[in-house]
Every structure is written in structure tokens, then in C-alpha cells.
């Protein structure tokens, strides 16, 4: 990440070294350094997350075999921020659910640090579009949940609840219940809850899609800050190309049904970026042109065949 943000549309090449995101000096503001675990640098040739030849097919209710994902290959470096875009129905959410271990692929392998995953694991935490927070728990207890499951001692849990709630600027709401918060606050709690289990990889499934524009802008800033402060690897799914360029080091475009990697676009704009920045818009246009072909295909499929069965098993209507 470029710390000299305001200069020329700088080179932003893919580093050969595993990325250790810059940690701004204001870090201590958010609590003891010991709390946020540093991402261990690993040997450069092993990607943090590696998808090799992932395919997923399943039988629909009418009995036909549907190929949702087809031979997906993707390598994500430690500390990298990768955005996946595609038309709705391309299986991008499903792909995240597979990486999270909530479903199994039909074939192919998902590797984290070179090891195949075994079901869900707290090294990879998924943040859902509809937050999935537990309404029977307070904000603090929600953040505590993953640590409690892991058996983290009580005192440490309490310290971390405070730390992560401060990180998302919700320290005052520890005792509130979820329904008392706004949509943006809920999504921030979801981020805090995910970070509190100290995953290496954050999987974000259109987390800001249901929010209003101002809240989303704010959360983009916060997410970028949290990413640079905690050094997590982030895989972020969105249907919004500008959002992808605003946030990502790299944008991966998936095709419509079956989902394949159509193209990858490194984003070489200096950070912080703005949604309204003409450079962002320009970068988006290139991706949008390719995306539009896929959207047209998806529309054709919908209009010609009537309503197709949903192909994203991980996504609840």
C-alpha cells in the first residue's frame, strides 16, 4: 500500500513479497498492540488462499444437473485485498461459502497456507450480506461468540471485545441488542465479531450491498483502515465494480453460469481511493464492459427460461 497517497497515479505493481500492509502510527489508539495478532509472513511461493480447479455442480429440484462453478483457479497472497465481481447468479457468494467451508465443492481443492481446508475454521471468517448477528446476544456477546467457542479465557475475551468494538467505533454499544442498531452499525459489529476470532482471512459477501450510499462510503474507509491496521487477507464479493476498485488490490471477474474466472484486473491506483474519483471510474469502465456481456447473458437466460432455480445454495432468500 502506498502511504504517499496523493501523488501521481503511481505504479502499484503486484509485489513479489507477501504483502505486509503498512501499519500507520496511530495504531496504538486502538489498544494494546498485543491484541491484534500480526499476520505471520509465510514463504512467498505459498499463497494464503489457493483455489485450484474448483467446480461445483448439484441437482436442482427438477432433477437436472446444474454446473454452478467451473474450474476456478485463484491465488490470494497474504495481506492481499481481492474483490470478486460478477453478475448475480454467477456463484460468487457460493464460492465464498466454499472457502468458508460451509459447503463442499464437487471437485478441486481449497488450500489455506498450502493445506486443504477441513470444513469451517476460524482462520477464515465469513461476513454475510445480512450480517447474521445473533439477536439474542448483546453486541459485546456477539463479538465474544467466536472466542468463547475457541475457549479463549474470559479476561482476554473481555479485553478483546473492547478492543474490537473500539476498532469499529462502537465501544459505547457493547450492551445494546442488535435490533437497536442501524444497518451500518450492524455490519460493523459483524466485522468486529469476525475480527475477534483473529482469522487470517476475511471473506466478505456483499457486506455493504444493503446499506445507503453514505454509510457505505464510511464503511469503505473503515474497512480499508482496519485492513491496513490488522493486515488481514480479504476476499470481498460484490456486484458493484466501483466498490471493487475502491477497495481491491485486484479485481477478479466471474462469468455468468457456470461461474468461471473471466479476467483479472490488478488495481494500480494509489490509496486511499474514492468512489467518485475519475480514475476509479475509468478503471471501472474497462471491467464494466466485460461485466456487461455477462449481465446480458444472465438477462437472456432469465427472460428466455423464465425463472431459473437459484444457483447459490449458500444464499438465503
Amino acid at each position, binding site marked *: 500500500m502506498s502511504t504517499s497517497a496523493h501523488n501521481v497515479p503511481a505504479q502499484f505493481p503486484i509485489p513479489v513479497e507477501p504483502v505486509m500492509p503498512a501499519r500507520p502510527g496511530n495504531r496504538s489508539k486502538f489498544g494494546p498492540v498485543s491484541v491484534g495478532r500480526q499476520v505471520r509472513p509465510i514463504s512467498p511461493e505459498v499463497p494464503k488462499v489457493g483455489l485450484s480447479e474448483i467446480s461445483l455442480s448439484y441437482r436442482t429440484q427438477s432433477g437436472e444437473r446444474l454446473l454452478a462453478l467451473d474450474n476456478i483457479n485463484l491465488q490470494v497472497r497474504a495481506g492481499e485485498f481481492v474483490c470478486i465481481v460478477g453478475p448475480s447468479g454467477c456463484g460468487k457468494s457460493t464460492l465464498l461459502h466454499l472457502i468458508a467451508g460451509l459447503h463442499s465443492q464437487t471437485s478441486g481443492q481449497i488450500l489455506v497456507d498450502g493445506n486443504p481446508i477441513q470444513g469451517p475454521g476460524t482462520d477464515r471468517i465469513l461476513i454475510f450480506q445480512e450480517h447474521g448477528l445473533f439477536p439474542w446476544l448483546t453486541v459485546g456477546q456477539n463479538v465474544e*461468540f467466536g472466542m468463547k*467457542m475457541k475457549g479463549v479465557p474470559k479476561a482476554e475475551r473481555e479485553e478483546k471485545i473492547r478492543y474490537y468494538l473500539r476498532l469499529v467505533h462502537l465501544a459505547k454499544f457493547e450492551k445494546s441488542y442488535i*435490533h437497536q442498531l442501524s444497518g451500518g452499525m450492524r455490519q460493523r459489529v459483524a466485522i468486529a465479531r469476525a475480527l475477534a476470532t483473529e482469522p487470517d482471512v476475511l471473506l466478505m459477501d456483499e457486506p455493504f450491498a444493503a446499506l445507503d450510499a453514505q454509510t457505505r462510503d464510511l464503511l469503505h474507509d473503515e474497512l480499508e483502515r482496519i485492513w491496513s491496521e490488522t493486515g488481514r487477507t480479504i476476499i470481498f464479493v460484490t456486484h458493484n465494480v466501483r466498490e471493487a476498485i475502491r477497495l481491491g488490490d485486484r479485481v477478479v471477474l466471474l462469468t455468468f453460469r457456470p461461474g468461471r474466472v473471466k479476467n483479472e484486473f490488478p488495481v494500480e491506483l494509489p490509496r486511499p481511493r474514492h468512489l467518485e474519483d475519475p480514475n476509479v471510474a475509468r478503471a471501472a469502465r474497462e471491467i464494466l464492459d466485460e461485466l456487461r456481456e455477462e449481465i446480458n447473458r444472465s438477462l437472456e437466460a432469465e427472460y428466455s427460461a423464465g425463472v431459473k432455480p437459484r444457483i447459490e445454495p449458500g444464499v438465503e432468500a
Partner: protein
Amino acid sequence: MKRAARYIIFYAALFGLWTLLAELKIWPPYLFPTPWGVGESLYAGFADHSYWIAIRVSMERVLIGYAISVALGMILGLGVASNKFLEETMGGLLVSLQSLPSICWWPLALLWFGLNQNAILFVVIMGSLLSVTLAMEDGRKQMPKIFGQAGRNLGAKGFKLFWYVLLPASLPFIVSGLKQGWAFAWRSLITAEMLYLSLGLGQVLMMGRDLNDMSAVIAVMILIIAIGYIVDGVVFKGMERHLQNRWGLTPAS
């Protein structure tokens, strides 16, 4: 306040009608007692501790039976809801069994357990188990799937997943079934108690009949209604209100 006024007017009228009919002596007093007679019976029953003992015995039984029903019903319901095979096979059986009045288990219970406490418990359990099971099954299906996924995602599995996620997540959807299960348990208990010397409220009720003491019969009926109503209105209403507050649901009125 207007609501309270309506209550008072209604019950005053009911009470007045009852007194009037009793005072007219259309029926002999031992068949149609006055409210005062019933009041005296209630007082006498509490004064000589026989009602206290009966309430304690009955409550103990219903609580044990209901607790077993809830525990078993949750496991069964969860199993039926999460297993396609069980759903197809046992699901239908459970629904059909629900048409069997629980007291029909009494002859079977007598032969299996003999004439004792366990036979009564068995009838109570059979009375409420089905509605708890069906409620749990239904609740598990209605519960948004995202909670289970989020729980697994955060490292919960097995019993922890059930206890910390699936159970609390389905509670708003099963509370009405739990309430229904309670009502069935209470009714089954009283019925079973009426059929044998059991010390409970059911037996006290039958004793009134044996002694030709209609005041006592009505007094015990009032007690049975009152206890059922209090548990429903205090315990379950409180639970529903609590859940609504927590989840931010608007009360379904």
C-alpha cells in the same frame, strides 16, 4: 383502565348470575352451591393444608414430566427437522399420534409401570411430548439458516452449536409450541390423577365427587384453572415478551 373496568363488570355480572341462580334454589344446594359455599371450601382446603399438599404433588409431577418432554421433544424435533429420512418416516407418525388423547396411554402405562407415580408421569410426557417435538421441528425449519451458518463459521459445532446457536435461534419459533405442550401436560396430569389415589389435584377433585361435596369440586376446578392460567400468563407471556424485546419483534397482538 377501561379494560380493567370491563373485566370487573363482566366478572361481577357472572358472579351475580351465579348467586342469583343458587339463591333461587332451582337445584338443590348440594348440586348447585353458592359462591360463598365454594369460597368456604377453598378456605377450608387451604386451612387444613390438603390443597397445598395437592398443589405441591401435582406441580412436582407436571414439572418433572414437562421437563422430560421438553428435553426429549427438542432432541426428537431437531432430529426430525434435520434428517430427511426421519422427517419422511417419523414426521407423519408424530402428526398422526397427536390425534390420540393422552389418557389413552393410561391402560398401557398401568400395565408397564403399575399403579404408581411413573404411570402418571408417562401419561404427562406422552401428552406434551408430541406438541413440543412438532414445535421444535417447525421452529428449526422456520429459523433463518444464516444463524446456523454463522455459528459454524465462528467455530461452533456439535452440542455447542445446538446449545449456543440453534436453540436460542429457534426459541421465538418454538415458544408457542412449548406453551401448548405445557397446556397438554397439565391437562393430562389432572386426567391421570383423577383415575387413581394419587394425592394430586385430580384426586382431590374426585374426592369431592365421592363425598357429594359440589362446593369442593368447583373449588378444585377453580384451582386447576388458576394454576394453568398463571403459568400460561406469567411464565410463557413473560418469555414471549422477553424474546420480543431481545429480537426487536413487534408483539403479535
